[in-house]
């Protein structure tokens, strides 16, 4: 296949001295699906910004279709037939799908092209939809369509502007497994129509599934370009992280002891007032990990919030070490050594405009140990924060840095450090590694298992089935606010098996679930 794009020895040094790219080579062949992988901060975003004309490279050359190019802005890039689909959609919610697709390039008619040519617009958009099989309802308003369709609208938008080279930035981050399958079908259709795809991701399974070739970035350099068929996940992740990565969490068999948390017939409402939990019962013992599997939105959020005191229950009981938790305040529950890693570290888990130290002392600032008279003991706080940052490998200059300046992985380590710093007897970990790079995932998983082995009862909720299976000793599957299966995580338990329960196709008898 002929070479479509060649970026050679790209360097980018920002005015403040950060070198984001330190010699990146990227060669994309026409008609291929090229995966660009790397940890957070490896330089993927900078490279794409340079390609798209949003940043000027400090050094290096770009050749596109054999011609050296230098874009001064995204407009040039679009004109040359490049298109980018961002992770966060840039659509106008109150306009229709078809209006969004043509926005800014509407077909015109009449004197001075004063009027929009609606007929032509529909003709063109419908042709586009038919050609690529990207099924969307053109008349519907964007705010009413599901996420997967919004992404299709973004892709159609790019195609409408004549893009031949399409950059997809973490396209599957917001999709359900089914939507991901559909997206991959669309990508295949695009390629068969002669388009070229650059696919940015950190999910290696998807890389293996869809790409032809892979370029790995690490610390601002391109480490390798591989043929997908000649490599495997272990090799890619080793190249990304720079050392061996354990995919299987190394753990000894669980040694469950007394029951720590006992949930009985729990019912709770979601924010809209409909019943999100329909009578849930389960136990978690000291020294075991219970995984909660399920497609997102089946009651996981409500379950976690009810146990941690953030949401009121309508019926049922939650006994923690023999004491009723329902009715207790969040502060009381936290004081009873219940650790909670919340599902969204950006909104609940951390205060981004506060320092790392302020984020770490959330459970300790009332503790006499951290006070001197009526005042906070800043030396003690500083010392505590530094110890925590070291123990949990939080990479930042010092504890006075704003939490919002940390990468996703480092910020999550701050959250994990804080929640584990009180030696929880019960740890509720909700999406503990969402959007976190491989190195940090490995670290956080190890810490969770360490707590289990130390006698804590652990509940892990994750949208990543592989994570639930890697960490859990037992797995409860939530479907529609009910536990439809309670399974021992034995080696012969397969993802397919759990998948049937997740989709509501199979259901265990009530007795087995209890």
């Amino acid at each position: 296949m002929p070479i479509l794009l060649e970026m050679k020895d790209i360097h980018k040094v920002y005015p403040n001295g950060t070198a984001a790219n330190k010699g990146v080579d990227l060669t994309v062949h026409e008609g291929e699906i090229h995966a660009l992988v790397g940890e957070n901060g490896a330089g993927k975003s900078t490279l794409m910004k340079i390609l798209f004309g949003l940043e000027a490279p400090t050094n290096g050359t770009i050749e596109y279709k054999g011609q050296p190019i230098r874009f001064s802005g995204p407009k040039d890039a679009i004109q040359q037939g490049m298109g980018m689909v961002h992770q966060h959609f840039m659509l106008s919610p109150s306009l229709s799908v078809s209006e969004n697709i043509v926005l800014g390039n509407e077909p015109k008619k009449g004197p001075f092209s004063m009027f929009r040519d609606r007929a032509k617009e529909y003709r063109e958009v419908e042709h586009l939809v038919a050609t690529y099989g990207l099924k969307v309802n053109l008349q519907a308003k964007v705010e009413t369509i599901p996420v997967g369709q919004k992404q299709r609208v973004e892709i159609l938008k790019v195609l409408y502007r004549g893009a031949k080279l399409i950059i997809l930035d973490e396209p599957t981050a917001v999709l359900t497994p089914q939507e991901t399958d559909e997206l991959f079908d669309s990508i295949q259709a695009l390629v068969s129509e002669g388009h070229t795809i650059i696919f940015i991701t950190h999910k290696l399974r998807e890389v293996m599934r869809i790409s032809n070739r892979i370029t790995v970035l690490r610390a601002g350099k391109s480490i390798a370009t591989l043929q997908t068929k000649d490599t495997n996940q272990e090799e890619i992740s080793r190249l990304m992280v720079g050392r061996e990565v354990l995919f299987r969490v190394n753990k000894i068999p669980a040694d469950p002891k007394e029951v720590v948390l006992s949930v009985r017939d729990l019912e709770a409402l979601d924010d809209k007032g409909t019943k999100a939990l329909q009578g849930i019962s389960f136990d978690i013992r000291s020294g075991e990990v219970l995984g909660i599997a399920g497609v997102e939105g089946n009651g996981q959020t409500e379950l976690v919030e009810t146990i941690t005191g953030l949401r009121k229950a309508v019926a049922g009981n939650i006994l923690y070490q023999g004491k009723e938790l329902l009715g207790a305040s969040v502060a009381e529950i936290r004081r009873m050594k219940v650790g909670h890693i919340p599902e969204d570290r950006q909104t609940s888990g951390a205060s981004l405009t506060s320092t790392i130290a302020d984020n770490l002392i959330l459970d300790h600032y009332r503790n006499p140990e951290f006070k001197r008279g009526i005042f906070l003991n800043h030396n003690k706080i500083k010392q505590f924060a530094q110890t925590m940052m070291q123990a949990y490998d939080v990479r930042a200059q010092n504890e006075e840095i704003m939490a919002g300046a940390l990468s996703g992985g480092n910020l999550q380590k701050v959250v994990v450090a804080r929640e584990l710093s009180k030696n929880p007897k019960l740890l509720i970990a909700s999406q503990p590694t969402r959007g976190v790079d491989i190195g940090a995932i490995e670290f956080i998983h190890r810490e969770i298992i360490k707590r289990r082995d130390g006698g804590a009862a652990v509940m892990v909720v994750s949208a990543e089935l592989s994570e639930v299976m890697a960490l859990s000793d037992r797995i409860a599957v939530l479907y529609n606010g009910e536990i439809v299966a309670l399974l021992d995580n034995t080696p012969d338990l397969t993802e397919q098996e759990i998948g049937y329960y997740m989709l509501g196709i199979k259901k265990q008898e009530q007795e087995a679930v209890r």
Partner: protein
Amino acid sequence: MKSSRMVVLEVSGILMAVITALLCGFVVIFLTSSEPFAAVSALFLDPLSSWFNVGTILNKAVPLILTGLALSVVFQSGVFSMGAEGQLYIGSFLGALTAVYLPGLSPWIHLPLVVLAALIGGALFGAIPGLLKAYLNANEIVTTLMLNFVAILLTSYFVNNQFKSHGGGYAKMENIDKNILLAKIIPGTSAHAGILIALAAVVVVYLLLYKTSIGYELRMVGKNGHFARYGGIATRKIIVISVMISGALAGLAGIVEILGIQQTFKQNFSAGLGFDGIIIALLARNHPVGVLVAGLFYAYIQVGAQTMQYGSDMPREVAVIIQVMLVLLVTAQAIFTFIKQRYAKTEQKAVK
């Protein structure tokens, strides 16, 4: 509590705004005045040319610093109260009542009682919008602005009727006993002891916000309410407390102004001190030390306006232009940083 680089950035940003506002003032002076150099010098040099003028600056700065602190506290907890003006009236009214209608006490007992009454009055009046916000989710901007009218008109009614002084036609209370008025602290000037109270308040508010657990809770509620709730902080209680502390400081501002300058409670005596406090807090980015600097600067410009009016052909309104420009630029800057942060955040999320 921030890294030094950020402090430098922020301070230089505010300095830029101040300089730009001053330049705008210059432009107006140079375009309209027949003696522009005399006007500029009268505006900037005359306020510092005599001890008397310096004393006036200090006196003018006192209520500005106190209301600035009041609003800094409440802004830090994420509540956009505009109610300092009303709290100032209610607090100082109660303080003045205590001063006028409890005669015969030793000043050592009387003065603290007067101040305490003002603090309590302001705090209780502040509690109303605080409770409305925390438990009924009523928009605090609306409630506080409305309650300002209640306070101003209510106190006005009382000093026109029940508590009106017997001598003269002014709507004011009887004069307060000289024994409990604030003493002059610099001979030959009008500077009164209020500046010492203001300095003490700066220290107390600084310690409260940055060195105590309630200050920590207050800041966390302001920075990220979800985070505070998740961490078990009683966010509603904190909101009420912060508005009450703010109200107490506003009440203090009012009573110090009365004991230092006005000598009794007069109808409409504040004329917007509570609103000036908003500007001071904005300029200071809600930091107590910044409030001190901003309050002094603002008072300096006000005195400069007077000296310019005497010393040249320019009216004092030029100073108002400078003040308005300052508000415009500083607010724009705050919005700009906010947008930049948002943008940076989405950028960070968008491409990993």
